[in-house]
């Protein structure tokens, strides 16, 4: 397994050489973390996608100047915070009184502050997704269920899961993937309905 920072740095260097696909991989990896971070600063959840998008576009444009002194995620988190603050200024609103440190922001639990501003429809969807995911997990074969729970709930690495389940790492990887696919299939009708309704409204 590659070390996270060295893989990120290698991807950054690929982008600096003009390889846009390497940047896509960095977006895949960090967009959720950046979204959560940005969501803590913005009062309107519907602004989050725009600010996340701006963050990554700014990062892409600034990448030629990134020398790798810090980790890529630390660097992009700073860009995200600045973009969120600028967005608030441009919307003539104030940022939350309690400032959140870059390193701490990721460790916060479900955002209570955010929930105050979430729309009822999205709250209902989140609750429904939660129920469906739990149902999907309960229908998984035991080996897949164990693998995905050890990964997502306990945060174990693939090596640790392989050791706990007494199987090769490749098997762990395959089980986690199959579990995710099964849950995703279970959620598909729900997400399709939601997209359809949103499209209609």
């Amino acid at each position: 397994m590659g070390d996270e920072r060295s893989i990120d740095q290698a991807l950054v260097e690929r982008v600096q050489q003009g390889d846009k696909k390497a940047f896509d991989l960095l977006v895949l990896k960090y967009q959720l973390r950046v979204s959560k971070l940005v969501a803590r600063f913005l009062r309107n959840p519907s602004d989050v996608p725009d600010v996340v998008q701006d963050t990554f576009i700014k990062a892409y444009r600034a990448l030629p100047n990134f020398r790798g002194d810090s980790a890529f995620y630390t660097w992009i988190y700073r860009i995200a915070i600045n973009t969120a603050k600028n967005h608030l200024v441009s919307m003539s609103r104030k940022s939350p009184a309690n400032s959140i440190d870059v390193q701490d922001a990721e460790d916060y639990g479900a955002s209570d502050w955010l929930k105050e501003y979430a729309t009822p429809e999205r709250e209902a969807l989140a609750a429904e997704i939660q129920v469906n995911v739990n149902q999907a997990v309960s229908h998984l074969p035991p080996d897949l269920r164990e693998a995905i729970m050890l990964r997502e709930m306990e945060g174990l690495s693939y090596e640790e899961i392989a050791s706990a389940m007494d199987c090769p790492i490749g098997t762990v990887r395959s089980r986690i993937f199959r579990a995710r696919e099964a849950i995703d299939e279970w959620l598909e009708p729900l997400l399709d309905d939601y997209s359809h309704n949103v499209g209609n409204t």
Partner: protein
Amino acid sequence: MNTNNENQAAEKISAYIDDALSAEEVESLIGTNESVEQADDHFSVAARYHMVGDALRGELSDASMVDVSAQIHQALRNESFDVVESTRKTKPVGNSFNLLALLDNFFGSMARPLAGMAVAASVAVLMVVTVVQMESPEGVQQLATSPAALPVVTSDTQIANKQSVEDVANQKQQMAEFDTYLTEHAEFAAQDTLQGRIPYVRAVSYEAE
């Protein structure tokens, strides 16, 4: 995701978001020639896997459902990019040991400080050589007789020379007064100097004799 290849790609993405993909496989993910639709599929796959993870941890929020990777991909498609003109070659992804790459990195990072030190050392050597030449009688003679060292005499330089001669005379007089002062107040000199070294005042008084 129907075909085997698509499944393999999705499995790699699943492992990639868990930081469990080997360097070579990351390289292969970048290297695949996929269509726009396939790329968009990969983005949504990764976003859904993230969302499933959040749901399992009970951390599902609005932010968990944000997926802007396809929009970013679209926005950057026509973006021109100033490729970094670096002496470093593109490294393969990963941390496999490569002596040449290591040396390249080391000398790449050391090049600037080394160049600075080399310039400083050259200036220092030049100054030392010049001073030594100036101080030695041959050097002075050589300097004095070398065509480059011959002054272009103008009225301004004559005034300057006259002033510098007066300055040297004044300086000599001041030094003589200072030496006399030190010689007369030498009672603590032996205590103030390091063992085995001739006190300055003794040297001065010796020269005076």
